[in-house]
Structures are given as structure tokens and as C-alpha cells.
């Protein structure tokens, strides 16, 4: 059953259908909000409140956008509200420790450590970015939205989105180099690309 059908079912009074939408998008939205807010606990609050609001206002969803895009906008507003009264919370680091999960079968202890360290470095660098830049980067790289959608979500001109993304990437690259000058960004081997279209 696709999103449209689940929404129809939910509007007809089948709450389980909405539950399936929650299950489908909860972790994706939580990751995005965690990176934007810098706190897994705050992100969980925002995600829960966003789904509740989406459920209560589902009949106002006009379906001109994807459900997730609409949901994300609700979450972004909730995140702004929460950020104004932020409290001590579970850090990204704690979230990562909890979420990094058990080692893959066959992954060596050193491999797991390396994976954990890479993620830690990247998150530390991401957390240093100004929120505006971080949000644009999360929307593009983690959420995969195109510039037009990001511009719509953030209520910005496309040129500003492009500019923020550029600056966010450059700053992130610099921060990572500061953290570990011997490694390429994100600890990944970045072979020079051939001049082909992405």
C-alpha cells in the first residue's frame, strides 16, 4: 500500500494505516532532526509531535507535495519551537553510541571502531556548522531533496539554497581536515572522479 492509499485509509478512520506511515518514516525523520537539533532526545520529541500534528491535521494535506515533504515541514516548525526552549538532552554522541548497533557479522573490532570514529568525526564536524547550513546539507545529502524542494521547505530562493550548500560543504570539509588531517573527508577514500555527469 503506498502513501496515498495509507492516507486515504487513515482519513477513513483506520488509525493503523497512519501507524504504518509513522513506521515508514520515523527513523528517517528522526535522523534528520537529530542532525539539525544536535540532540537525539529533542529530535524524538519533535518527531513524535510532528506525527501527532500530521495525524490531527491529515485532512488539510492537499497532496500537492509528497507526504514526507509535508511532514518534514511540520517537523521543521516543531524543531524551531523546541530550539527556543532547548534543555539538556541526550547528545548526538549518545545517540550514535546507541544507534551504531552491533558489529556486522564478520566486521573486525578495529573495523567497527573505525566506523564509529568516522561517524563521530563527521557528526562533530556537522554539529559545528551554523544551523542554516546544517539544515540545507541534511535536506540535500540525507533527505535527497532537490534544490527546488529545499527552497520551498526553507522558504528561500534557490540561489540561496545553492549558496548555503556550497558553504556548508566547504566548511564541513575544513572541519574534517582539522579533526584528522591525514584522512580525506569522512574518512573515505575519495578517488578523483572522471569527468562524467553525476
Amino acid at each position, binding site marked *: 500500500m503506498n502513501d496515498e492509499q495509507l492516507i486515504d485509509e487513515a482519513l477513513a478512520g483506520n488509525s493503523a494505516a497512519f501507524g504504518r506511515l509513522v513506521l515508514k518514516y520515523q527513523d528517517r525523520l528522526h535522523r534528520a532532526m537529530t542532525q539539525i537539533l544536535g540532540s537525539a532526545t529533542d529530535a524524538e520529541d519533535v518527531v513524535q509531535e510532528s506525527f501527532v500534528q500530521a495525524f490531527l491535521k491529515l*485532512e488539510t494535506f492537499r497532496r500537492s507535495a509528497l507526504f514526507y515533504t509535508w511532514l518534514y515541514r511540520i517537523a521543521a516548525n516543531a524543531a524551531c519551537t523546541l530550539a527556543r526552549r532547548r534543555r539538556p538532552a541526550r547528545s548526538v554522541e549518545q545517540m550514535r553510541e546507541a544507534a551504531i548497533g552491533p558489529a556486522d557479522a564478520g566486521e573486525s573490532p578495529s573495523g567497527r571502531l573505525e566506523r564509529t570514529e568516522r561517524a563521530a568525526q563527521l557528526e562533530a564536524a556537522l554539529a559545528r556548522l551554523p544551523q542554516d547550513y546544517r539544515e540545507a546539507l541534511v535536506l540535500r*545529502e540525507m533527505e535527497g531533496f532537490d534544490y527546488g524542494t529545499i527552497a520551498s521547505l526553507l522558504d528561500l530562493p534557490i540561489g540561496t539554497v545553492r549558496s548555503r550548500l556550497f558553504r556548508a560543504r566547504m566548511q564541513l570539509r575544513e572541519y574534517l581536515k582539522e579533526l584528522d588531517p591525514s584522512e580525506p573527508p569522512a574518512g573515505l577514500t575519495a578517488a578523483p572522479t572522471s569527468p562524467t555527469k553525476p
Partner: protein
Amino acid sequence: MTDHQTPLSDDELLCAYLDGELAGDELARAERLLAEQPASRQLLAELRALGDGLRALPLGQLGEGFPQRVLRKAERQLLSESHVSTAHPADKPPARWRNKRPWIYAAASLAAGLLVAVVSLPHRSTKSPAAAAEHAAADQFAHHAPESAYPAAAASSPSALAAKPSSAPVPPEQQVGLQVALTQLGLVPVDAKAIALQLELSEAQAPATQPLAVWSCIVDADTLEHDSLERVLARHELRVVEQWPLSLEGTTTADAAGARSPAAKLSSSHAPVMAVLVAGDPQQLNATLTDLRSRSGTFQQLTDLGRKSLRNTLAREPAAGTGAAKSREMPPPPQAKREAAGDRQPENQGRPEKSNAPRSRSIHNVQAPSELVLFILRRAVPVSPASPPAPGNPAAAEQGTGKE
């Protein structure tokens, strides 16, 4: 996509190229750069690796129970809006939900099924509630329920509990046990009907005396609003059976009555706002209490209010503050059962039953590998209406708004 007026720098152009957002002349320019300049290719590779790294960051796992938490919260909000709309007709919930009461009931029935499954499981303890109350608070559950006493360990898991919904209608008298437990504590649920609703759908498997441990703590508005307790419980794989908003009348009544109720052990400056019923095995509950104690900034003054006996009928109220000690098994009077049922419930709401006739059904002490705990969440309010905060004392003025 190009809406800019000034030419992009080479690096900015490569970023847009990476995102597939170039066309026409800009695309041609980017491709030329990449063909001619190794540094551009290196930058593009680094940016691509950066994106790969971001996408590889671990997803936080909210768990399969998260949708249920969302729906439960939405349901509470709907019920709350319905409650408000009664008093303020102009502020009604959306039309969709005004016509969807059956849906709300259906959602409620899910919780009801869980509750019945919990209370209908056999209880392993043959100790009297009075004996149970003697256990130390810190290890209350571990002492009261040694692990070895649970032959069917699997049945104590939340999933096992959830897998036992019942189907028969519940005798109305069973609808009121929890409400009585609350009123014994001097608390008044805001929506008593909602409690009846939950239990109504639960079945006549009817046990009906079930030990109910009661704990109280003081929380701030954020903790309430964001279900912080629920998250701690989830961390210990505990399930919230149900929760109800409580009215301030509970405090007022109890205090006016001489502060004899267990609830009145706490300062009257802390108003009860929420009752949260939790089921789980003793070890889980013990670990949860330890966890809550370690979060003393969020859950302040975590206090053991003793044990109550959850009955399936309107029970004669034991003396306030000693409910657990005075609870005892009563023989089941044949007619009193129906007499004590739902019709009487509204008028007894919030105050003890006055009849001398023992109304409690005896009820076999069931053996269950689960315990029920009722958390009473309180929020600070001004100490006394007679002593309002001084005008120049904003900190005091904020008391009661949950911003302490």
C-alpha cells in the same frame, strides 16, 4: 537549475554539478573544468565522499512501538480537545474526528486489551497486600517477586502481554477499580468516563484484586509534554497500559479532608496532573525506578506511596494512607456486584463509597508474573492562593506554569 545573476565560482559550480542541478552553459562549463583540472576532479571526489559519509550515518532506532506512542498521544489530544469543546463549543475538534468517535473507542480498546491481559495473568504472590507494603521501596519489586517465582517468563514480556486480548464484555463493576484506586489516593481523574471506557472493553476474566504500587514524582511541563516518563519506560521495555489527566480537585479534596491520603504526603504545592499505569515484571520495574532516581533533575522527589489493591468493584474505602495494609479479601455478595456497577460510578466519582455493606468482590488472588504500577506525576503550583507570589518575584510567579 539556475536563477542566479552572478556567475558561480568554480567550486560552487562543482557543488551544483554534484547535485545534478546544472544545465546548459553551466553544465558545459563544469564538465570542461573536470576534464581539464585535476584539482576540480579531486574536489568533486571529496564532496561526493562527504555526501556518502553523511548518508552512512546511523539511523536512530525509534522502535516498532513508536507508532503506537504517536497514536496514543494523538488519541489523548483528541479526547482532550473533545473535553475542551464541551466547555467551549466554539473550539471544536475537526469535523472528521467529531464523526469518528467509534474510531477513538477502537483505539482505546487496544489499550483495554493490554490492560486486561495484564491483570488477568495469574499472580504468583500469595502475600497479603499488607505484607507486600512492608518491603523496602528501593527493592520493592525484586523482593516481592523473585525471578524464580515466574515459571512462564515469556509471558511477562510486553509482546506476550499484548498477545492476550480478551473478547467478552466486562461486568460494569470492573470498570471502576482503577477509579477507586485513584480516589483512594485523593485524586480525581479529569475524564473518569475514559477510564471506564478502557476497562469496559477488557473482559470478564476478572481477576480483580491486583496489587497496585503507587509512586509519585514532581515533573516540569517539558517532561509532561514530551512523555519523558514514557521514554524511560520504553527503555526498560515497559508498556504504558494507560494514562489519565488528573484534576486539581484531588489535591484540594485531600488537603481539605485533613491531608490523610497518601497523596497528601506530598506538599500541597504540587498538583497531580497525570496518572500513568504501567505493567511489567518486577525486575523491569525495579530497574526503571533506579533509572528514574538517577534522573532526579527531571523526576523530582520520587516517592513511594505504598500499595493499593486494585479491585474489580466499588470497594469500601480503606483508611486513607493505609489502603494496602487494610485491603482484604471480601466474599462476593451476589447482588452487590451489579448494584455497585456503572450506574453508581459517576456519583461516586472522586469520593469514597459511604455504604457500610462490603461492596468489594472477592476476587481470587490471581497469580501474575506482572506488576502494576501507577505513577502520579505532579507539577508545582503556587503554595497557597492566600499567598500569591510577590510582584517583584518572577521566579515565584512562574511556579505552577511548569517552568520551574
